[in-house]
């Protein structure tokens, strides 16, 4: 039991995929223009990560060592196709704003990395908890980044059409650079530096 909780915590804090391992940067920076996109991306990644970890862990004793990477990639690509088609059918607007970053989950290093480094060597319950931890860690990072980008770039905080918060002054004169690609680089740079300065992450 303790081991399972340890697996969960590992992904969220100790080896957070985005903030500490610096994996999966492309989707994190590209779709973090609004909180809606961040939640949509997290849900898609979480589904693919958990399912691929379960499947890889189930077949780990039957996969020949030499062809394991192609096998993992085909499993992940199939799961991503499922997510892509489901999203196009039920959430067309979200699917449109995430664009090519849904099919690009295939080459997200977090998913292949966990399949290779963890799921192919561990039992199913541990693999599920590891996927949950990594997925939530990814979600936390992308939500923080999109929170700052949306607040500073538009002045409002809208979540699924409900207005939660309006920054006084900012909503009349927002800083659109934060919605542009450069804003993503600025936000993640300052976020990483702050986390290092406060000692949450070891610098180096």
């Amino acid at each position: 039991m303790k081991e399972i909780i340890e697996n969960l915590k590992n992904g969220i804090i100790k080896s957070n995929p985005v903030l500490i391992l610096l994996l999966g940067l492309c989707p994190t920076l590209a779709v973090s223009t609004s909180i809606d996109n961040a939640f949509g991306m997290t849900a898609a990644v979480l589904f693919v990560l958990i399912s691929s970890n379960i499947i890889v862990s189930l077949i780990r004793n039957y996969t020949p060592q030499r062809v394991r990477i192609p096998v993992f990639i085909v499993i992940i690509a199939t799961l991503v196709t499922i997510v892509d088609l489901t999203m196009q059918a039920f959430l067309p607007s979200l699917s449109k704003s995430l664009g090519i970053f849904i099919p690009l989950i295939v080459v997200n290093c977090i998913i292949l990395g966990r399949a290779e480094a963890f799921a192919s060597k561990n039992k199913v319950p541990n693999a599920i908890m590891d996927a949950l931890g990594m997925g939530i860690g990814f979600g936390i990072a992308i939500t923080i980044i999109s929170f700052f980008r949306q607040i500073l770039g538009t002045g409002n905080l809208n979540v699924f059409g409900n207005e939660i918060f309006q920054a006084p002054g900012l909503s009349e004169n927002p800083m659109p650079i934060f919605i542009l690609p450069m804003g993503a680089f600025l936000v993640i740079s300052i976020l990483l530096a702050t986390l290092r300065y406060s000692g949450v992450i070891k610098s180096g």
Partner: protein
Amino acid sequence: MDNLFAIFISMALINNLVLSKFLGLCPFFGVSKKLSNAVSMGLAVIMVMTAASIVSWLIFFYILIPFGIDYMSTVIFILVIASLVQILELTIKRTNASLYNALGIYLPLITTNCAVLGITFINVRSEFNFIETIVSALGAGVGFTLVLAIMSGIRERLDIADVPKAFKGIPVAFLVAMMLGICFIAFSGMV
């Protein structure tokens, strides 16, 4: 002809893969520490990107669309890229030893490079014709190499600069990427 030139410029400078589409960030920060490595990586990416775009365009429009199985594109494209990388690696190893020594270790990395898979999707979704696909893949590769080379030049200088401790390494690299992005906005009036 004008149209092809516009596509090339737009892919290389205006809609640069790294700075405005966020594709290929892992090699952008991972391999940009030395100029020579950056150029080798860039050349490998140009080769694989063009080859992968050509093959996946042919497969998409002559096999997937006629048989109505275009929903399989994600699986097919990643397999195309993975096998192309293997073929290229073997061919270079047999024919040109010095080129293999320069590019060898970067070729396997390209399989999971989202820039290559991304550009095949962009070409198919923009409904480019065959020639436009080749030009757009070349442009994207050249743009990627250009930015990678600029970045590595700056990072070689940054290593000896006096950067605040918390910003050392990756955070300051992100800041440099932001400023490069602002510079590249200047190209947006060109086409």
